[in-house]
């Protein structure tokens, strides 16, 4: 029950928010999903990966293409966007079955992500090339998504359901296997757990969550362009998971909420954005490697993460 306190409290946000702050809150919801999904791989599985912006992008592009070219409504494209993300997550990590691990796997995901971004730019007919693709107005089971408030309630519902699903997943056999692989793959394999398959599964599930985040992003921004899913975006995803706390579900939510609004500040000063987020990574690694969630737990015990063991 404790889980629902936060989303229920959030229901009141539209009462006090103006359209701009409401937009920012909606964007935070999108990034909560991005961080929660990425954290599955980066924090829980403990595998470095660079494909997250690509998964985010493929979700956004498949949603935008289905809505713009095929005329599907938003509610119908959510699952396909997730499946597209899952397929990309599967492809990015499938070499794990061949025994590719750690750095090698990270490099494959880097190449795969850049390959996808290249295809957005050069697949003009489907993706609109560098100009991007406009997303038409749509609805969620009849609720028109034409105001920030309407989008907020729909997003809140989707995000709550998915974060709860991830939370359940982490407590299931699959989730425990994923965390066990991070802590000691050899020991996990000795328990007859097929670690390669679980690594691919973690990437696929992460892709599903991040792909759906992409579909929300497409509807929120109204246009998908290749630039939104490049290296500038990637550092933001890394920072959210690390600042929140590697492997902590609560941390991913905190990290997303804390950092979503910041890029706006840096827009006018080229370079400051990269310096800030790069510096943030360095500072947290040196000073608070367990992230904000560990700070929060120190301050209030019940927030302590039950799935993360101190090494």
């Amino acid at each position, binding site marked *: 029950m404790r889980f629902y306190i936060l989303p229920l409290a959030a229901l009141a946000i539209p009462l006090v928010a103006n359209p701009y702050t409401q937009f920012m809150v909606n964007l935070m919801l999108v990034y909560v999903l991005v961080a929660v999904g990425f954290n599955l791989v980066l924090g829980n599985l403990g595998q470095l990966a660079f494909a997250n912006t690509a998964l985010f992008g493929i979700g956004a592009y498949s949603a935008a293409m289905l809505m713009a070219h095929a005329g599907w409504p938003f509610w119908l494209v959510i699952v396909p966007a997730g499946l597209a993300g899952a397929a990309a997550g599967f492809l990015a990590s499938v070499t794990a079955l061949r025994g590719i691990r750690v750095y*090698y796997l990270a490099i494959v995901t*880097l190449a795969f992500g850049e*390959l996808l971004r290249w295809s957005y730019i050069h697949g003009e007919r489907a993706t609109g090339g560098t100009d991007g693709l406009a997303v038409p107005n749509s609805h969620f089971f009849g609720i028109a998504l034409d105001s920030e408030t309407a989008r907020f309630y729909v997003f809140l519902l989707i995000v709550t359901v998915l974060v709860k699903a991830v939370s359940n997943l982490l407590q299931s056999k699959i989730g425990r296997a994923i965390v066990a692989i991070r802590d000691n793959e*050899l020991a996990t394999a000795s328990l007859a757990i097929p670690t390669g398959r679980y690594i691919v599964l973690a990437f696929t599930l992460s892709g599903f969550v991040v792909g759906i985040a992409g579909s929300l992003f497409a509807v929120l921004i109204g246009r998908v362009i290749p630039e939104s899913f490049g290296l500038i975006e990637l*550092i933001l995803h*890394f920072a959210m998971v690390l600042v929140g706390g590697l492997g902590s579900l609560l941390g991913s939510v905190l990290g997303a909420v804390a950092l979503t609004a910041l890029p706006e500040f840096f827009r006018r000063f*080229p370079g400051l954005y990269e310096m800030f987020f790069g510096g943030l990574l360095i500072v947290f*690694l040196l000073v608070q490697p367990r992230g904000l969630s560990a700070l929060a737990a120190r301050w209030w015990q019940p927030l302590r993460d039950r799935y993360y063991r101190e090494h």
Partner: protein
Amino acid sequence: MFALQLALSGLAQGAIYALVALSMCVVYRATTVVNFGHGDLVMAGAFVVYVLVVLAGLPFLASAVLAVALLFLLGVLIEIGLIERIKAGPHIGFALMCIGFGYVLRGIARGVWGREVLPMPTVFDFPPVIAGDLVVTADALIIFAAVGVLLALFFVLFYRSSAGRVMQAVCQSERGAALVGINVRAFHGVMWGAGAALGAVGGVLIAPLTLLHPGLGASFLIKGFAAMTLGGFGSLGGAVAGGLLLGLAEQWVGGYVSTKLIDVTAYLVIILVLALRPNGLFGRAVAERV
């Protein structure tokens, strides 16, 4: 003839990739850290040369030496100030740290130079060498010469000198090396510096030939990885061969298929090699000890 002409420019480009890949390999072999910020060190080398030549008005050679020295220092500082400090943490921390400082370097470059793309004035104003139908630019010759000399020097140092034997000892077993009195910590710092300096040489050589922009680092990183995977991850000679092969492959794909595909070649090389021959083209499967 066309194929040969493409091969020449491919080898010149490949020589730079070889240098970048070798410098990444040095850090990896010596410290087992894969430096995901290495591309940005290469980019930083190129930018420092640009600043010294264009803004400070120094001659190219002096600026090149200064840039390489500066990057050596930066490499040592990164090792001591950032990498050494998180030694106790999980391995993923190293990678995130490298990503972090890479972005900081990129941000500094973008902050100082803004969004524009910078052309560097031509440095070597020699006429190209023409042999029959083949045209060899002076730039390509200089790159061949510089990279060749550097590689020869490096391999002699690594495999023949007593300092090189110390390096090999630490690469093989840190604890064993420490037991016979080698200062492993200092060694790690020096190797980071050497890696950064070698990478910077690549940046310095490429600076007069290409347009400079802060995003250069990311593409160097991927090409360096592609070269390393081609040659078998962690093999020094393999990294050099892989770099040359990648340069050739890029030019041939660009010349015969489509220039659009030049950038994709490296991505495909990484994915295909790791999926089909994880130990690289020349590598043998290593039995894993459990």
